[in-house]
Protein backbone atom coordinates (compact mmCIF):
# COMPACT_ATOMS: atom_id res chain seq x y z
CA UNK A 1 0.00 0.00 0.00
CA UNK A 2 1.74 3.11 -1.13
CA UNK A 3 -0.98 5.42 0.07
CA UNK A 4 -0.34 6.95 3.45
CA UNK A 5 -2.43 5.42 6.19
CA UNK A 6 -3.40 6.52 9.68
CA UNK A 7 -1.92 4.92 12.76
CA UNK A 8 -4.37 2.58 14.43
CA UNK A 9 -5.09 1.43 17.98
CA UNK A 10 -6.74 -1.93 18.38
CA UNK A 11 -8.22 -4.25 20.93
CA UNK A 12 -7.52 -7.80 19.80
CA UNK A 13 -9.99 -9.27 22.29
CA UNK A 14 -12.86 -7.20 20.84
CA UNK A 15 -11.60 -7.07 17.25
CA UNK A 16 -12.04 -3.30 17.46
CA UNK A 17 -9.85 -0.78 15.68
CA UNK A 18 -9.83 2.99 16.15
CA UNK A 19 -8.06 5.74 14.26
CA UNK A 20 -8.42 9.48 13.84
CA UNK A 21 -9.16 11.08 10.50
CA UNK A 22 -7.61 14.53 10.42
CA UNK A 23 -8.87 16.85 7.71
CA UNK A 24 -10.71 19.98 6.77
CA UNK A 25 -13.58 19.31 9.18
CA UNK A 26 -11.25 18.58 12.07
CA UNK A 27 -10.57 15.29 13.79
CA UNK A 28 -13.07 12.46 13.34
CA UNK A 29 -12.84 9.22 15.29
CA UNK A 30 -13.20 6.22 12.98
CA UNK A 31 -14.16 2.83 14.35
CA UNK A 32 -13.79 -0.55 12.67
CA UNK A 33 -15.04 -3.79 14.14
CA UNK A 34 -14.80 -7.32 12.81
CA UNK A 35 -17.58 -9.64 13.92
CA UNK A 36 -17.76 -13.34 13.19
CA UNK A 37 -20.78 -14.17 11.03
CA UNK A 38 -20.13 -17.87 10.71
CA UNK A 39 -17.08 -20.11 11.10
CA UNK A 40 -14.08 -18.20 9.78
CA UNK A 41 -16.13 -15.46 8.14
CA UNK A 42 -16.03 -11.98 9.63
CA UNK A 43 -17.93 -8.88 8.67
CA UNK A 44 -16.07 -5.60 8.69
CA UNK A 45 -18.12 -2.74 10.14
CA UNK A 46 -16.87 0.81 9.75
CA UNK A 47 -18.21 4.15 10.92
CA UNK A 48 -17.66 7.47 12.68
CA UNK A 49 -17.87 7.77 16.45
CA UNK A 50 -19.69 10.89 17.59
CA UNK A 51 -18.33 11.87 21.01
CA UNK A 52 -21.34 14.11 21.67
CA UNK A 53 -24.02 11.48 21.09
CA UNK A 54 -21.80 8.54 22.04
CA UNK A 55 -23.00 6.70 18.95
CA UNK A 56 -21.43 5.27 15.83
CA UNK A 57 -22.83 6.34 12.50
CA UNK A 58 -21.95 4.15 9.54
CA UNK A 59 -23.96 6.20 7.04
CA UNK A 60 -22.49 9.63 7.71
CA UNK A 61 -20.54 11.38 4.98
CA UNK A 62 -17.53 12.82 6.77
CA UNK A 63 -16.24 14.91 3.86
CA UNK A 64 -12.99 15.43 5.72
CA UNK A 65 -10.93 15.57 2.53
CA UNK A 66 -8.97 12.40 3.31
CA UNK A 67 -11.18 9.69 1.79
CA UNK A 68 -8.36 7.81 0.09
CA UNK A 69 -6.26 7.78 3.25
CA UNK A 70 -9.24 6.58 5.32
CA UNK A 71 -10.08 3.76 2.89
CA UNK A 72 -6.42 2.76 2.69
CA UNK A 73 -6.41 2.58 6.49
CA UNK A 74 -9.53 0.39 6.54
CA UNK A 75 -7.99 -2.00 4.02
CA UNK A 76 -4.81 -1.97 6.05
CA UNK A 77 -6.82 -2.97 9.12
CA UNK A 78 -8.35 -5.89 7.21
CA UNK A 79 -4.84 -6.82 6.18
CA UNK A 80 -3.60 -6.72 9.77
CA UNK A 81 -6.58 -8.74 11.03
CA UNK A 82 -6.06 -11.46 8.45
CA UNK A 83 -2.34 -11.56 9.10
CA UNK A 84 -2.85 -12.11 12.83
CA UNK A 85 -5.71 -14.60 12.57
CA UNK A 86 -6.50 -18.05 11.28
CA UNK A 87 -5.32 -18.20 7.65
CA UNK A 88 -8.65 -19.75 6.65
CA UNK A 89 -10.48 -16.60 7.75
CA UNK A 90 -12.48 -14.52 5.30
CA UNK A 91 -13.26 -10.85 5.77
CA UNK A 92 -16.46 -9.64 4.15
CA UNK A 93 -17.12 -5.96 3.60
CA UNK A 94 -19.35 -3.70 1.58
CA UNK A 95 -20.04 -0.01 1.44
CA UNK A 96 -23.07 1.38 3.22
CA UNK A 97 -24.33 2.67 -0.13
CA UNK A 98 -23.51 2.37 -3.82
CA UNK A 99 -21.09 5.29 -3.76
CA UNK A 100 -19.09 3.84 -0.90
CA UNK A 101 -19.07 0.45 -2.50
CA UNK A 102 -17.69 2.09 -5.60
CA UNK A 103 -15.00 3.72 -3.47
CA UNK A 104 -14.01 0.34 -2.04
CA UNK A 105 -13.85 -0.91 -5.60
CA UNK A 106 -11.54 1.92 -6.58
CA UNK A 107 -9.34 1.34 -3.54
CA UNK A 108 -9.02 -2.37 -4.29
CA UNK A 109 -8.27 -1.57 -7.93
CA UNK A 110 -5.56 0.78 -6.78
CA UNK A 111 -3.91 -1.74 -4.46
CA UNK A 112 -4.78 -4.84 -6.43
CA UNK A 113 -1.26 -5.77 -7.49
CA UNK A 114 0.07 -5.66 -3.94
CA UNK A 115 -3.01 -7.24 -2.37
CA UNK A 116 -3.27 -10.06 -4.88
CA UNK A 117 0.27 -11.12 -3.96
CA UNK A 118 -0.90 -11.72 -0.40
CA UNK A 119 -4.66 -12.24 -0.51
CA UNK A 120 -7.39 -13.98 -2.41
CA UNK A 121 -9.82 -11.24 -3.38
CA UNK A 122 -13.37 -12.07 -4.41
CA UNK A 123 -16.21 -9.96 -5.68
CA UNK A 124 -19.79 -10.80 -4.78
CA UNK A 125 -22.91 -10.26 -6.85
CA UNK A 126 -25.08 -12.99 -5.48
CA UNK A 127 -24.36 -16.40 -4.01
CA UNK A 128 -21.14 -17.33 -5.74
CA UNK A 129 -18.03 -15.21 -5.23
CA UNK A 130 -15.80 -14.75 -8.24
CA UNK A 131 -12.14 -13.74 -8.35
CA UNK A 132 -12.07 -9.96 -8.27
CA UNK A 133 -11.97 -8.32 -11.68
CA UNK A 134 -10.85 -4.76 -12.04
CA UNK A 135 -13.48 -2.30 -13.19
CA UNK A 136 -16.38 -4.64 -12.53
CA UNK A 137 -19.06 -3.60 -10.06
CA UNK A 138 -19.57 -5.80 -7.01
CA UNK A 139 -22.09 -5.49 -4.23
CA UNK A 140 -19.67 -6.88 -1.66
CA UNK A 141 -16.16 -8.24 -1.27
CA UNK A 142 -14.42 -11.15 0.41
CA UNK A 143 -10.71 -11.39 1.08
CA UNK A 144 -8.59 -14.13 2.60
CA UNK A 145 -4.89 -14.72 2.97
CA UNK A 146 -3.10 -16.74 0.33
CA UNK A 147 -1.18 -19.76 1.48
Amino acid at each position, binding site marked *: *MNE*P*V*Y*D*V*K*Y*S*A*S*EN*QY*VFESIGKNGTIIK*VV*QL*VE*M*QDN*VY*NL*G*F*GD*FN*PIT*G*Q*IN*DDVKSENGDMVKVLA*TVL*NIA*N*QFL*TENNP*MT*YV*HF*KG*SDLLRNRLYQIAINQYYD*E*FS*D*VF*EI*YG*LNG*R*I*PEPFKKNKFYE*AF*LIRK*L*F
Partner: protein
Amino acid sequence: MRTTEKPIINKTLKGKFTKVDSFPFLEGVEMFTKKNKEAKEYLANVILPSR
Protein backbone atom coordinates in the same frame (compact mmCIF):
# COMPACT_ATOMS: atom_id res chain seq x y z
CA MET B 1 6.13 -19.97 1.58
CA ARG B 2 5.83 -18.05 4.79
CA THR B 3 9.34 -16.65 4.48
CA THR B 4 8.63 -15.33 1.01
CA GLU B 5 5.39 -13.76 2.20
CA LYS B 6 6.95 -11.79 5.00
CA PRO B 7 8.59 -9.04 2.97
CA ILE B 8 5.35 -8.53 1.04
CA ILE B 9 3.29 -8.32 4.20
CA ASN B 10 5.75 -5.96 5.79
CA LYS B 11 5.67 -3.80 2.70
CA THR B 12 1.89 -3.85 2.69
CA LEU B 13 1.42 -3.25 6.40
CA LYS B 14 2.30 0.38 6.64
CA GLY B 15 1.18 2.49 9.53
CA LYS B 16 1.54 1.80 13.21
CA PHE B 17 -0.74 -0.63 15.06
CA THR B 18 -0.83 -0.16 18.82
CA LYS B 19 -2.51 -2.83 20.91
CA VAL B 20 -4.73 -1.75 23.80
CA ASP B 21 -6.80 -3.77 26.27
CA SER B 22 -10.07 -2.09 25.36
CA PHE B 23 -11.68 1.18 24.32
CA PRO B 24 -13.62 2.41 27.37
CA PHE B 25 -15.48 5.01 25.28
CA LEU B 26 -16.95 2.20 23.16
CA GLU B 27 -18.34 0.23 26.09
CA GLY B 28 -22.09 -0.03 25.69
CA VAL B 29 -22.05 1.58 22.26
CA GLU B 30 -24.12 -0.17 19.60
CA MET B 31 -21.66 -1.45 17.04
CA PHE B 32 -22.97 -2.02 13.53
CA THR B 33 -25.79 -4.28 14.75
CA LYS B 34 -28.06 -3.69 11.75
CA LYS B 35 -25.29 -4.06 9.17
CA ASN B 36 -23.99 -7.20 10.84
CA LYS B 37 -27.46 -8.71 10.78
CA GLU B 38 -27.81 -7.90 7.08
CA ALA B 39 -24.36 -9.31 6.38
CA LYS B 40 -25.13 -12.50 8.28
CA GLU B 41 -28.30 -13.08 6.28
CA TYR B 42 -26.49 -12.31 3.04
CA LEU B 43 -23.53 -14.55 3.81
CA ALA B 44 -25.77 -17.45 4.82
CA ASN B 45 -26.61 -17.81 1.12
CA VAL B 46 -23.09 -17.38 -0.20
CA ILE B 47 -21.13 -20.42 -1.30
CA LEU B 48 -17.64 -19.76 -0.07
CA PRO B 49 -14.76 -20.70 -2.34
CA SER B 50 -13.04 -23.88 -1.27
CA ARG B 51 -9.31 -23.96 -1.00
